[in-house]
């Protein structure tokens, strides 16, 4: 069966070319600038200096993080009870509910966001509120399904056991159900926060161009301005910020487990 090992080798080449190399090219672009006729490119930090010395860019980054964070929190607050209620239904109703939550997700994301544009066109909300509605709409199903999965895996005899040991409903929830569902919440956070930081068509379609996020900046520098070096630097900064936030989320998870 060792001969099957060779099946992986072509994929190694493929992955090196299409997954690893593009990341290296982004890093290269981020640390370089268009040079003159003699030397076509020069290696420099100036793209990063430019980003961090301009308060507007910092503000956009902060706004993106804030949007992602608040979206994630709203998704947990609305999604947790929903997942909890679904997990308490009869097994066949549970699978119907999961199907009903999944179904809208299968319909193209752009199409769903476009639909909200129509609904919110005349609504007296600020662009910011409209963007939040679109974000929560798009990401809530992920959160519900992740929390539901961890809740449904739970041993159903745990809650009666807690009651027998003298817990009331509230205590049983806080001491038994909630801690056991934290892994679901964490993976929900990963699925919501991560793409939310970089989203750019929801703010563009619902915020009407007045609500600029990091994703919109990157899109602008690549599609409109054509300044690929600066665009790459912004992408790299965003990827790093996401990586650091995910590190802290995971760490929080481990600390919780250690207690």
């Amino acid at each position, binding site marked *: 069966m060792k001969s099957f090992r060779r099946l992986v080798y072509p994929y190694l080449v493929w992955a090196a070319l299409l997954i690893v190399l593009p990341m290296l090219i*982004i890093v290269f672009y981020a640390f370089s600038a268009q040079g003159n006729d003699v030397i076509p490119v020069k290696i420099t930090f100036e793209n990063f200096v430019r980003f961090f010395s301009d308060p507007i860019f910092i503000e956009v980054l902060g706004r993106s993080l804030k949007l992602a964070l608040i979206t994630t929190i709203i998704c947990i607050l609305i999604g947790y009870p929903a997942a909890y209620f679904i997990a308490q239904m009869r097994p066949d109703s549970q699978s119907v509910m999961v199907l009903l939550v999944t179904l809208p997700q299968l319909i193209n994301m752009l199409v769903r966001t476009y639909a909200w544009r129509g609904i919110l066109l005349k609504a007296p909300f600020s662009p910011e509120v409209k963007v939040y509605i679109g974000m929560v709409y798009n990401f809530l199903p992920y959160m519900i399904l992740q929390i539901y999965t961890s809740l449904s895996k739970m041993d159903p005899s745990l809650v009666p056991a807690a009651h027998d040991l003298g817990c009331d409903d509230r205590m049983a929830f806080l001491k038994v159900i909630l801690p056991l569902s934290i892994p679901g919440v964490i993976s929900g956070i990963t699925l919501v926060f991560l793409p939310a930081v970089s989203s750019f068509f929801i703010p563009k379609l619902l915020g009407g161009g007045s609500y600029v996020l990091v994703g919109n900046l990157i899109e602008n520098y690549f599609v409109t301005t054509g300044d690929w070096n600066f665009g790459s630097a912004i992408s790299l900064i965003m990827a790093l910020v996401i990586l650091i936030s995910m590190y802290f989320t995971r760490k929080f998870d481990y600390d919780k487990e250690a207690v």
Partner: protein
Amino acid sequence: MMKKNNAFSKFYLFLILAFFYLPIIYVVFFSFNASRSLTNFTGFSLRWYEKMFKTRSMMESIYYSTIIAVIATIVSTIVGTIVAIGLSKSSRLIKQVVTQVNNLPMLNPDIVTAIGLMLLFSTINVPTGFGTLLLAHIMFCIPYVILSINPKLRQLDDNLAEAALDLGCTPIQALYKVIIPQIKEGIISGALVAFTMSFDDFVISYFTTGPGINNISTYVYATTKRINPSVNALSTLIVIAITLIMIVSNVVPLLRERRRKNEETA
């Protein structure tokens, strides 16, 4: 007490579902609107459907979304299955390396993966278009297929394939007569994930496609600068297609199961 809780939870879930389905019902409703308006329903009409079928670029976007998703699903499912099987026999190091590399497109924001590919295609001077779009889709689908198959491979008994070889199978025969039937479920769910990811993708498509080649997502994005009610008609078409697929894929196994049970009792 219990009953009250039950009513509240039902009401809560009803509100959640209403929120999820509101925009879908809204586009379906307004796709039959006689006027351009997205807020006033002035009468029933099929003009936006007529316009959709007459708009070449719109029909093309449906065609490209479908053809890309179908090819990307087939290729990534085959490649993903082969790689996953190979990986299960590989050394720890190779496993680790491939897992980490596959994590990159899954954990990286789509926009980073997208501009990476765009910069790659520009660096090696490949003009963007149908080919680059397809390549990008295959690239991001394969890791999901591998991820779906891996758990099934872990449950697989190594001795079975060995036994097949001892009984005179060639490795290829052992592959499709012994291994593949046992990981079939993983392969099917991998293919479903790949199809959904590809059909739904906007960000990676947006940066890796070329002039004149739009899938549904990039088409909708490009046309929403002005109000275009035929997008509602297009959306309705997608809603109907997805609902039918879901009904068929969920009801057919149920009916089969019921028939099997009936046969058993008969």
